[in-house]
């Protein structure tokens, strides 16, 4: 299941269409939630793990819906990408998956996604993927994570998506595009 989540991230890396990338992000988050729930039934059966699984499930459903709405609203369909062509980025992400192993490949591919996309929504997606990797690491490596951390991480994700969406609106309004890689006004 974890491997399937990582493969979804690789597929996300290979597409330039935003809607499809959002779909693959949702699918990989859903799979992380399944891993978390199966962990609940197999190991600790603590209400905390179950609550966390529900939170991750919420992330898998609500965030893709919001991001789809956002990309429709901002009228963006394609991310032209920058720094690396998409097929090359996808192959690189397969290498990362092979070398770094399970939870870390999702984290690293999340950062790679942020580096290779130029739209604001693409960068938010990359960050969310990184956060998924961290969540999977928490499920795999620990027993009974303190609730506050999971709540904090989820709050972080939801607040970041909302704030990121607000900033994306403002970027579109002031710059008339969403290409954050072309930000060159403030630099050394």
């Amino acid at each position, binding site marked *: 299941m974890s491997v399937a989540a990582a493969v979804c991230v690789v597929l996300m890396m290979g597409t330039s269409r935003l809607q499809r990338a959002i779909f693959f992000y949702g699918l990989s988050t859903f799979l992380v939630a399944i891993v978390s729930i199966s962990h609940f039934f197999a190991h600790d059966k603590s209400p905390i793990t179950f609550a966390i699984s529900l939170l991750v499930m919420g992330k898998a459903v609500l965030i893709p819906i919001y991001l789809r709405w956002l990309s429709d609203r901002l009228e963006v369909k394609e991310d032209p990408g920058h720094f690396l062509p998409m097929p090359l980025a996808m192959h690189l992400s397969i290498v990362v998956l092979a070398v770094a192993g399970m939870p870390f490949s999702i984290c690293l591919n999340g950062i790679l996604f942020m580096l290779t996309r130029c739209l604001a929504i693409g960068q938010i997606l990359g*960050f969310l993927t990184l956060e998924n990797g961290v969540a999977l690491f928490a499920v795999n490596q620990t*027993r009974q994570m*303190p609730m506050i*951390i999971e709540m904090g991480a989820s709050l972080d994700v939801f607040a970041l998506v909302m704030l990121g969406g607000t*900033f994306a609106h403002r970027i579109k309004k*002031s710059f008339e595009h969403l290409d954050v890689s072309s930000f060159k006004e403030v630099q*050394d």
Partner: protein
Amino acid sequence: MPEAIVTQILHFYLLPLIAALTLAAGGKAKSMYRIGGPLMGIQSIFLLWQASTAGDMAKMSLILLFVASAVIAASLVHAELTGIMTRPREFHALAILLYFPLSAAYLSNNLGYLWFAIETATLVSAGLVYMHRDKRALEATWKYFIICSVGVALALLGTISIFASTQAGGEVGTMSFSALKSSILASDPDLAALGFVMCLVGYGTKCGIFPLHGWMPDAYSESEAPAAAILSGAFSPAIFFALYRVAEVFAAGPRWALYSQILMWIGVATSLLASIFLVRQYGLKRLWAYSSIENTGLVMVAISLQIPSLFVLQCLNHSLNKVAVFLLSGNVIDIIGSKKLSRIHGLLADDRARPTGILLAAGALAVLGAPPFGSFASEWMIFARLAKSGEYAVLTLSLLSLVIAFIAIATHVSSMLFGYLKHSEHRSPRRVSVAVPVCLLLLSLLLGLSYCFPEALKL
């Protein structure tokens, strides 16, 4: 205890209420937000009072929290005295709101809570960067928001790794600092190492260690001066504190010799590169941003030495001096109408700009660690300690970075002070107030004198 109740009311009810009213109040109550600054001042006096009676570790947290509240109070009062902020109500609300995660970060005895507090503070502070609402501010805010969020996510990975490492051998695991210090000895060494590195990278991104400092000059130069002062003087020390606490846990572990070397060398690389960047700077607030990065390097060296008093002193001086120069830079930008160093000349030639110019020179000396300011004492003690422990390479490179920074900043500041003043076409009608920077620099001076001439002050 009555004072405990009063503090509790201030902590938990009054300040959030003011922050909420600041945004919600309309009509005649619209100027209600103005009491926010004095109220934070009262809060900081309470914290200082509490710190004077607290135990060692609590004293360190309370002193740093006092600094945070004093910095917020100073920035709010200065913003009110000069009327420099474009959105004063929102600025007050966000600055007071930022105080809560900062107090949680300082007062929690738990690695997880600490992370949660820093994360919340990051989200709140994004609003402070975006006060000016123009294109450049938006660009800087986006960079700050995305880079720091990645940093915070990596710090979460580090926090989880440290927690997982304490579960080795079927233990329950802990995140409490006091328990971590003893359980780190029996922890899984690889997971603990991953935790240390990820916390260093994550929190390091937030405090601007090289090469993760990219967001800092942009965010400081594009946010308005009092907001930049809060980011540099109140928020950065909280991140230093987080790094200090993580390092403190590992100082009890078997690999500390290696970790302290890593911290030390990252610190030296950060200060050396920041001082080189200082040479060719074009923006006034970017200059102080790079100077903050240089200071981050010195703080990292102080963290690697693991002497609490030295660390607190360095943070205290950083806050006092940086807040003073950021607030004064706000005055300069307001008078001249530009933040480009190439356009700022002749501050001493104009009656309106002269007090700001003289204080900016004093502030620059304080930032550079010239005697008799407080930073001289802390930097001197760091170098003495490095020499004592035989770290001559680190000592030489740190001194070199200080020399480069001194020459660079002295050149830029003297070109601002002398020459002819060219006013902007629209002369700013706002007041020029230097009351708050004067107080901050006097405090820094007093701190330095108390270390340089302890006998004289005892009399």
